């Protein structure tokens, strides 16, 4: 396979500092071999605390039933499905970075793809909790799997978007996990081959599956990564499309809009990139990986955030316009009264969503802002708050007032158990991320070495001389070589 990637010499280096292959290994493996810092322990213990809170909340809900949540007659979906869609959305950035950017040959992805993929897997794990525990009788959860049974046989409904969701999310989780882990194998082997301690030899020996770095294995590995990327690209788009079908195929005013699939996918990439920013800004600082996750990476991701945020903004305005232009009184009511009217019970959440998702990311049109770490971190949190409210607006404002005013619900507030469950998924997410950052290389070592040739600072500096020579001089120098070339003499 000839190299398809060309890295312009004009672009700034993707790996800063004078790095050779060995320095790359040293830098990335250092956090794994060092004892965890105090900051790591504090963060880890807080995460475990949240996880325990979540486990208690879920246990309470299982024992006493879904009635422990404040769901009511019209608000059958509240925080739980909001959180589900929010986490699934966050879980889209990793595969986007690793698959779509691989197909587009974006060299910068190598610095951030490993951590983003891990984040994807943890986010999907968190997302999956909500529909599962919302079932109430969770011990019946296996009923969603189609298998010949003695109840008829009673099959699942393959025409239902909720079942599509089961297939989409479980496929997405499996494929992301395989993609992530097959990429990890060579790096785990690197850690194994450096290991001095007995437990490390055992642990990384088991997890690296006996990887040797043989040429034939690399050839197959490359083929595997490319095909998995090709498969994941439509997959990642299909997953949030199918999640949006949960709403779009229904006939609830505010939900049955054909714009939902592209709008959900753009929103997922938007919130996913924001979460990647939040995590990587902390990770690069704590693990001193600033030379690998550079300002360039942060800036590029901020560009993606402003682009997808604006797409989301266009989608919001389009659905608002269609609600008015379509002249369907129910649709119109759902938008104009339940959302746009700031004095309606949930009007505030609509404006919070608009402010966080559409207006605030616009500051990233300015290069200074895109390259400012504090602004980026602050914005990444704001975007995820905004995207949580987007799902809240879609779900709650569409169903809290239905066709019959007598069944309009009272103001919906989550109970402590709903909040605890949500906090618990944060605990699960960050516990997994802390363990990942301690025991696994957070940057794809082999892939960084692969781009080092053309994107490393050493190479760029060497090339700098060429860039400074005027084009005429450069051309004449090289034309000189051609005079002696055999084909010129005929």
């Amino acid at each position: 396979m000839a190299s398809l990637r060309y890295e312009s010499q004009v672009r700034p280096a993707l790996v800063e500092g004078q790095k050779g292959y060995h320095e790359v290994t040293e830098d990335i493996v250092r956090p794994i071999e060092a004892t965890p810092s105090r900051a790591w322990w504090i963060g880890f213990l807080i995460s475990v605390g949240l996880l325990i809170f979540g486990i208690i909340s879920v246990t309470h809900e299982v024992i006493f039933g879904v009635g422990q949540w404040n769901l009511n007659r019209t608000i059958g979906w509240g925080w739980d499905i909001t959180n589900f869609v929010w986490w699934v959305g966050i879980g889209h950035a990793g595969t986007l970075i690793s698959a779509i950017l691989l197909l587009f040959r974006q060299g910068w992805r190598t610095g951030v793809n490993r951590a983003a993929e891990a984040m994807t897997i943890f986010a999907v794990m968190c997302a999956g909790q909500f529909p599962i525990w919302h079932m109430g009788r969770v011990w019946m959860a296996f009923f969603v799997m189609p298998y010949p049974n003695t109840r008829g046989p009673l099959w699942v409904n393959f025409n239902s978007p909720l079942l599509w969701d089961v297939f989409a999310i479980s496929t997405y989780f499996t494929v992301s996990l395989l993609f992530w882990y097959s990429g990890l194998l060579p790096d785990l082997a690197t850690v194994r081959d450096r290991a001095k301690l007995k437990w490390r030899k055992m642990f990384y020996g088991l997890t690296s599956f006996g990887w040797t770095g043989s040429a034939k294995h690399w050839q197959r590995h490359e083929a595997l990564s490319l095909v998995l990327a090709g498969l994941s690209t439509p997959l990642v788009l299909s997953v949030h499309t199918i999640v949006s079908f949960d709403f779009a195929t229904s006939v609830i005013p505010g939900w049955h809009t054909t714009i939902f699939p592209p709008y959900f996918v753009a929103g997922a990439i938007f919130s996913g990139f924001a979460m990647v920013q939040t995590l990587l800004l902390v990770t690069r600082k704590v693990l001193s990986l600033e030379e690998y996750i550079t300002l360039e990476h942060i800036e590029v991701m901020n560009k993606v955030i402003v682009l997808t945020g604006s797409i989301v903004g266009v989608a919001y305005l389009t659905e608002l316009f269609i609600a008015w232009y379509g002249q369907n009184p129910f649709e119109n009511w759902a938008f104009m009264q339940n959302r746009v009217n700031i004095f309606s019970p949930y009007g505030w959440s609509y404006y919070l969503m608009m402010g966080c998702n559409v207006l605030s990311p616009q500051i990233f049109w300015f290069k200074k802002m895109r390259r400012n770490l504090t602004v980026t971190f602050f914005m990444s949190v704001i975007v995820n708050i905004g995207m949580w409210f987007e799902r809240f607006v879609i779900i709650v404002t569409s169903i809290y007032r239905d066709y019959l005013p007598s069944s309009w619900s009272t103001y919906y507030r989550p109970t402590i158990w709903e909040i605890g469950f949500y906090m618990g998924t944060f605990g699960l997410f960050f516990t997994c991320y802390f363990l990942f950052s301690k025991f696994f290389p957070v940057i794809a070592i082999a892939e960084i070495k692969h781009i080092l040739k053309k994107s490393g600072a050493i190479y760029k500096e060497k090339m700098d001389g060429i860039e400074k020579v005027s084009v005429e001089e450069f051309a004449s120098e090289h034309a000189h070589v051609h005079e002696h070339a055999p084909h010129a003499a005929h």
Partner: protein
Amino acid sequence: MAVKKFVVGYFEDEPELFAGVKKIRSAGYKIHDVYTPMPIHGLDKAMGLRDTSLHTAGFIYGITGTTTALSGIGWIFNSDWPINFGGKSHFDLPAWIPITFELTVLFSAVGMVMTFCYLCNLAPFVRKHHFNLRSTDDQFTVVLELTAKSNEGEIQAFLASIGAKGINTQVAESGWWLGRYDKDKTPIGTSLA
């Protein structure tokens, strides 16, 4: 698997490795394997390895998933237990597209990864001989097998002449065996030189 004798040397970077591999092949020596810390595009061609057929396997797994989904849902909704969903068609193909697509991707991905692990002998508890521990770090290791006909000293001298470093001879199991990296008696990367 057989225990064999190998001559091992390493290069420090890609261009030297490519030049070295070319020279080894034109001198008529057979390369047992090359171990590198990262994928090197074009190395397979330089070594004369044939292209992998993993893509084809992935395609076959994919269409298996497609047919599994379509025939499974079709059989369930038309023959095993036909349910009337609001008078809609029992053969409701558009509504099956999402699940058919997901199963295509799932079968293809799982099948390919399993085939990849099978072909490359990758699994927990699989042990292999590692000729050079730094070939997963920064060294590009070339391994030539010694046969009854070949001359160890000659090959070592040849490797040195083309710029290889750390040349040594190792006696090793050429395949894989079950074991653990911390438990195994066989020292990793034994050097007899």
